[in-house]
C-alpha cells in the first residue's frame, strides 16, 4: 500500500477539487470513449436502416404504378353484330380497337406505321377485354366508351427505366421499333401511368405476366392465417403461463417444462414447418396449402414467445398486490383474474403482438406445407374457403416473385415488401396504443 492510500486522513496529501488528477482524467476519458461507442453504434444502425428504407421504397414504389393505354371509342350495334358473326370474334374487336388507335394518333398528327402484331406486343390481345365489356353492357353500344388497357410489362418497364432502347434486344415480346409507337402514343396523350390497384387487390399470375400480378389474394391468406394464430395462441399461451406462474407447484417437472418452453422459442422455424407437414397434412390429412394449416404451424411457433413474455409480465406484478387481495379474502383465482392479470395486460399484449408480427413475416414453414406464392391464384369464396382453400401468404408470395426470371416480378417483390412492412408497422402501432391504454401505475 502506498503512502497516499492509507486510511488516516492526516497522512493524505492535500488535493484540490478544481484540479483533476490522473485517475479522474482516465475515468473521464473512459466514460467519453464509452459514450462515443454508443453513439457510433446507433449511427451505424440508423445508417443501415435508412439505406434499407430508401432501397425498399425506390425499388418497390414502381410496383404501385402501371402504364395504361387510355382510349375512347364508339362501337355501333352494326359493328357488334358483325363481330359476333365472325369466327375469330376477339380478333374482330382487336381490329376495331386498332382502327380507333390509328385514328386517334392521326388526329394528333403523328404518323407512325404500326401493324397488329406490334399492338399485340404492346398491349397483349386487347379484343377479349373489349368484347367482355360490350357483352356485359350492351346498352353502352353506340356511345363513346373509354378503355384503360394495361400495357405489357416491357412497355411498363420502358416507362420505369427498366427497359431502354440500348438494352432492348428485338424479340417476339418487344422490338425497338415498337418503342417509336410508344413514344408517339405518349406524345398523343394516349398512354399514361396510373396507380396500380390491381397490385394491391389482385392475385398472382403466371410467370409470363408480371404486369397482372397482385398481392391481394395472399394478403387475404395471411389474414386468415393470423386469425387462426391469434385465436389459438393467445388463450392457450396466456392460460399456460398463468397456470405455470401462479398455480403450478415448483418441482422438477415444472422446471423441465419451463426449460423446454425456452428451448422451443429458439427452434428454427423450418423445423416447425416440417413438423406441420408431418402431423397436420400427412397424419391428420388437413388440406395442403391451406391457411388453416399455416396458422396451426405458426401457432406452434408463436406459443413460446407469448408464454415467455406473459410469464415475465406476470412475474413483474409486485407480490404486495397479491397479498393485498388475499388479505381481504379473495381466492387465488380471484386474485389472479381481478388484480394480477389486468396489471400484466400491457406486457402480455406487447408479447402477443410481437409474436404475431414474427409469424406474419415467417416464410420457411409455409413453403414446406405448400403455401407457395403461385398457389394464390384467386380470392377465396367465403370464410370457410378462406381457411381451407389453397392460398399463399405475403412473405411466401414475395419469395416466389423474387425467384422468378422476369424483371417485372423483381419490382413486384419489392412492392410486396412495402405492403408487408405496412402491416407490421400497423401491428406495432397497435401494440403501442394498447400498451398505453392498459398501463397503470402502482
Amino acid at each position, binding site marked *: 500500500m502506498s503512502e497516499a492510500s492509507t486510511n488516516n486522513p492526516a497522512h493524505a496529501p492535500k488535493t484540490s477539487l478544481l484540479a483533476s488528477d490522473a485517475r479522474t482524467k482516465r475515468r473521464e476519458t473512459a466514460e467519453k470513449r464509452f459514450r462515443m461507442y454508443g453513439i457510433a453504434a446507433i449511427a451505424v444502425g440508423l445508417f443501415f436502416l435508412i439505406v434499407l428504407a430508401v432501397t425498399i421504397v425506390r425499388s418497390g414504389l414502381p410496383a404501385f404504378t402501371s402504364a395504361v393505354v387510355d382510349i375512347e371509342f364508339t362501337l355501333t350495334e352494326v359493328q357488334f353484330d358483325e363481330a359476333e358473326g365472325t369466327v375469330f370474334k376477339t380478333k374482330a374487336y382487336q381490329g376495331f380497337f386498332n382502327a380507333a388507335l390509328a385514328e386517334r394518333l392521326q388526329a394528333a398528327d403523328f404518323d407512325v406505321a404500326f401493324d397488329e402484331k406490334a399492338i399485340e406486343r404492346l398491349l397483349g390481345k386487347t379484343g377479349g377485354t373489349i368484347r367482355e365489356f360490350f357483352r356485359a353492357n350492351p346498352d353502352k353500344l353506340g356511345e363513346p366508351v373509354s378503355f384503360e388497357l394495361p400495357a405489357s410489362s416491357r412497355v411498363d418497364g420502358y416507362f420505369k427505366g427498366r427497359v431502354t432502347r440500348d438494352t432492348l434486344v428485338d424479340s417476339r415480346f418487344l422490338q425497338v421499333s415498337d418503342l417509336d409507337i410508344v413514344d408517339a402514343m405518349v406524345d398523343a396523350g394516349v398512354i399514361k401511368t396510373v396507380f396500380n390497384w390491381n397490385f394491391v387487390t389482385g392475385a398472382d399470375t403466371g410467370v409470363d405476366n408480371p404486369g397482372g400480378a397482385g398481392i391481394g389474394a395472399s394478403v387475404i391468406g395471411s389474414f386468415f392465417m393470423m386469425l387462426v394464430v391469434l385465436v389459438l395462441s393467445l388463450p392457450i399461451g396466456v392460460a399456460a403461463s398463468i397456470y405455470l406462474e401462479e398455480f403450478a*407447484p*415448483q418441482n422438477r417437472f415444472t422446471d423441465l417444462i419451463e426449460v423446454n418452453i425456452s428451448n422451443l422459442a429458439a427452434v428454427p422455424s423450418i423445423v416447425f414447418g416440417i413438423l406441420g407437414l408431418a402431423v397436420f397434412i400427412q397424419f391428420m390429412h388437413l388440406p395442403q396449402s391451406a391457411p388453416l394449416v399455416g396458422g396451426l404451424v405458426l401457432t406452434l411457433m408463436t406459443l413460446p414467445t407469448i408464454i415467455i413474455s406473459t410469464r415475465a409480465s406476470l412475474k413483474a406484478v*409486485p407480490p*404486495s*398486490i*397479491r*397479498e*393485498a*387481495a*388475499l*388479505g*381481504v*379474502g*379473495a*381466492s*387465488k383465482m*380471484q386474485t389472479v383474474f*381481478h*388484480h394480477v392479470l389486468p*396489471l400484466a395486460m400491457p406486457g402480455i399484449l406487447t408479447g402477443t403482438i410481437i409474436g404475431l408480427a414474427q409469424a406474419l413475416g415467417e416464410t420457411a414453414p409455409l413453403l414446406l406445407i405448400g403455401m407457395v406464392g403461385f398457389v394464390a391464384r384467386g380470392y377465396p369464396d367465403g370464410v370457410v374457403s378462406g381457411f381451407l382453400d389453397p392460398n399463399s401468404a405475403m412473405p411466401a408470395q414475395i419469395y416466389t416473385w423474387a425467384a422468378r426470371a422476369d424483371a417485372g416480378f423483381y419490382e413486384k417483390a419489392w412492392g410486396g415488401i412495402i405492403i408487408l412492412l405496412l402491416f407490421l408497422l400497423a401491428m406495432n402501432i397497435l401494440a403501442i396504443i394498447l400498451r398505453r391504454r392498459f398501463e*397503470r*401505475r*402502482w
Partner: protein
Amino acid sequence: MNDMRLLQRTQGMNDIKIQANGVDVFYADNHAIKDVSVEIEDKTVTAFIGPSGCGKSTFLRCLNRMNDTIDICKVTGDILLDGEDIYDPKVDPVQLRAKVGMVFQKPNPFPKSIYDNVAYGPRIHGLAKNKAELDEIIEKSLRRGAIWDEVKDRLKQPGTGLSGGQQQRLCIARAIATEPEVLLMDEPCSALDPIATAQVEELIDELKQNYSVVIVTHSMQQAARVSQKTAFFHLGSLVEYGETGKIFTNPEDSRTESYITGRIG
C-alpha cells in the same frame, strides 16, 4: 411511556377469540416457530414484539393462513378461532381470511380508485345487495379507517395517489370493509412518519371496540402505547405473554427484561 398509566391499564375479562396450542412452523428444514401457545382475547389489542427474525410475523401469518401461499411452509399444532380449528381440511382459507383481515407492512392499495379499493372485499363476498348499500359500507369503512374526511371528495381518484399514511389507513378501511372479526397488522407503521403513525395508532385504539386486533411491531413504545396484551418472541419461541403493563414494568423472564431495556434485539 408513562408507567403510571400502564399500571392502571386494567384488563377486563374478555372472551378468548383465538387459541393457539403448540404451534410449530417449518420453512423446509428451518424450524421458524417452536411450540407456541397463546390465547388472544376479543376486543383487545395484542402486540407481538421481539427482535428481527424472531418469528412474530410468521406466527401472525399463521393466524389467517397466509403462509399457505408459500409452498415450503409447513404448520403443525392447533389454532382455534372461536373454538374451530382453522387448519382443519374442511376450512376454506378464503372464508377464514374474510373473518381474519390483514394489514401489511407496506401500504399496498390496488392501482384502482379509492372507492374500488374499499369496495373490492364487499363485492367478492357479496356483502352489498345494491349500489346504495355498497356506498354505505364504503362510507362506514372509510369513517372507521379515520380517512373519510380526507377522501370523501375524491373517491374516484386512484388510491395510489394518496400519501403513505393515508394509503395505510385506506388499507385498514379496506380490511374492515369485509366485516372481519380479527384484524392482523404486520408492522403497519414501519413505513410511516410519526404523524401518520400517531393517526394509525389512534385508529387502532378505536378499532378495539369492535375487533380483536393483533399487531406486530418493532417499536416497543408503540406496543406500550396501543396494546393491552403483549407477547415477546425470541428465536422462534414465545418467551413471555401477559398484560402490557406487566411486561413492560415487571417482566418475569430475564430475556424480556434485556430486550425491553435495550440490551438485546
